[in-house]
């Protein structure tokens, strides 16, 4: 029997029972569609987060006060108070040859005003190293000047959004602003390029770190950002940082040192696991669709008893009949899967309109996996009814109407 005829026969058999066929296609389409949409969402979430974090730059190390790992054992009787990270700690790190830039960060919020216009804004205290570290660019004026970081100079750099809010299109460099209860002179305005430090770089005012510490009355740092001299030096830099801080903090390991690579790897693992879990759950619906196929085909076989009996009478061997029913199940699975893919594409298009910034592209592995599982599900669940058809006794089925 020609392959074309086999496919033609099975195809027309499906079309001959439109409602049953429609239900099976719907079940398959929903199963495949949900697997693909969910894996696309999971993959998109992963890419989004990884993308955001990738912007941090690859040789970056971040030092945070306090140890964030939990160790086993009873809570200490006298709590361990993590020491503050100080400016001196940050400057001490420059001793290491594996480190190229060190930028201490102090962060707070304060009202910033020019004349009558006032805004509560994030104030970031840092050193000139922040410019190369975060690849910032100046739109006007210049960044913080080199000099003694312990000196609190009354100068500041505005982010582009806050500049627009307070000055509009008028030049800001050289002007004076009030931050909190002090006056600062504007020496530059940031452009909108460069990487963030985890906050909106447009809506920020940068002052020397010592000025920020005076403003917020603190001697501790929010964190220290460090750039290793190159990729291979990251490991040594981490060790050097740990050693230097430990020495300065009376032998306590009370800081957390994070490298971007580790963050990325962790997030990647989390999101891959999340995506697979979610897709796996959706795949259950494919199994359900397969069971539906089996159910419907069993009914079809019993409805078509006299047809099967006739086929045997005109000379179809049992395994030919098995093949015909299996091909029918396979065709229905594939066509259902195709509809599922169309459904998924439509759903993703709609989501893309609602959330334009979210990266949405159907991962190829999920397309292949969904179609593959759909097909195998259809075949596995089609085998039982097909075998039943092949074993029908022609005499029995032909002696009735």
């Amino acid at each position, binding site marked *: 029997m020609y392959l074309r005829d086999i496919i033609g026969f099975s195809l*027309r058999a499906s079309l001959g029972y439109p409602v049953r066929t429609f239900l099976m296609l719907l079940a398959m389409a929903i199963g495949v569609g949900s697997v693909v949409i969910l894996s696309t969402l999971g993959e998109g979430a992963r890419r989004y987060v990884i993308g955001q974090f990738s912007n941090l730059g690859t040789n970056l190390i971040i030092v945070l006060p306090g140890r964030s790992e939990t160790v086993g054992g009873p809570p200490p009787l006298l709590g361990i108070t993590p020491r503050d990270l100080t400016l001196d700690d940050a400057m001490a790190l420059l001793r290491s040859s594996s480190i190229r830039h060190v930028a201490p960060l102090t962060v707070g919020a304060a009202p910033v005003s020019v004349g009558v216009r006032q805004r509560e804004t994030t104030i970031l205290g840092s050193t000139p190293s922040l410019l190369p570290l975060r690849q910032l660019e100046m739109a006007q004026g210049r960044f913080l000047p080199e000099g003694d970081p312990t000196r609190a100079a009354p100068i500041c750099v505005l982010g582009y959004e806050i500049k627009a809010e307070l000055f509009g299109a008028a030049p800001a460099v050289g002007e004076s602003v009030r931050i909190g209860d002090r006056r600062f002179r504007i020496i530059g305005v940031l452009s909108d390029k460069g990487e963030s430090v985890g906050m909106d770089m447009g809506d920020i005012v940068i002052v020397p770190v010592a000025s920020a510490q005076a403003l917020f009355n603190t001697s501790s740092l929010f964190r220290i950002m460090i750039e290793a001299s190159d990729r291979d030096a990251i490991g040594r830099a981490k060790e050097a940082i740990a050693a230097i801080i430990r020495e300065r903090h009376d032998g306590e390991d009370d800081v957390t040192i994070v490298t971007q690579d580790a963050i990325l790897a962790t997030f990647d693992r989390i999101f891959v696991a999340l995506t697979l879990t979610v897709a796996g759950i959706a795949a259950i619906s494919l199994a359900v669709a397969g069971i539906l196929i089996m159910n419907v085909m069993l009914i079809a076989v019993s409805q078509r008893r006299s047809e099967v009996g006739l086929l045997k009478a005109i000379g*179809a*061997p049992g395994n030919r009949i098995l093949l015909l029913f299996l091909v029918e199940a396979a065709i229905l699975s594939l066509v259902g899967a195709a509809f599922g893919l169309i459904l998924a594409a439509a759903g993703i298009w709609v989501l893309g309109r609602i959330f334009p910034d979210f990266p949405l592209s159907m991962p190829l592995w999920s397309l292949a996996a969904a179609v593959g599982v759909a097909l195998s599900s259809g075949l596995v669940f089609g085998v039982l009814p097909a075998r039943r058809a092949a074993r029908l006794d022609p005499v029995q089925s032909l002696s009735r109407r």
Partner: protein
Amino acid sequence: MITLAGICREFMVGDERVAALRDVDLTIATGEYVAVMGPSGSGKSTLLNIIGLLDRPDAGTYLLDGDYITGLGDRQQAALRRHKIGFVFQFFHLVPRMTAAENIELPMILAGIDPSERKRRVAATIDAFGIGNRARHRPDQLSGGQRQRVAIARAVIMQPHTLLADEPTGNLDRVSGGEVVEILEGLNSGGITLITVTHDPDLGKRAGRRIRMVDGRIESED
């Protein structure tokens, strides 16, 4: 040439064993016209099914043109049903979703005959049987007589040498029944062995040979 020797067939009905055929010996020469008659339950349909390879005997031997059929596997028996035997049923058994022409084409599709040859043969058969104007209709759009004609066309499209008809006129009125019988007899005079099972004594009279069955045995012949 069909030779049956010592054929026995039993069925389980509920939990009772019922003997449908007991020790049947029968020889039918090529080109004969035989009518198998008898009351309900006499085993005549079972006999036809065994001759047509739709059923296997529990005991005995079946020789078709000198070859032992009884030992053959499913594929080989299916091949014989495709090429050497044609079946016509009381209830027609046309595939409801296919047109008349597609129904007639079906045995050739199963046999793997190429599409152009199939079209040619179907066209020729349709003309010969006078169903040209109904060829593209579905069975539910045809009358009983037309359906049976389509069924006969399907049965002979592969040019078998034996045609088996189980109550071919059982579902038809007198006029259509008469037409169908004429077609069958026409095929027989062309050399096809014709074996019919029937209740109708008038139909039986037309055959060259009558076999009467009672209770699974051949009671008389003439």
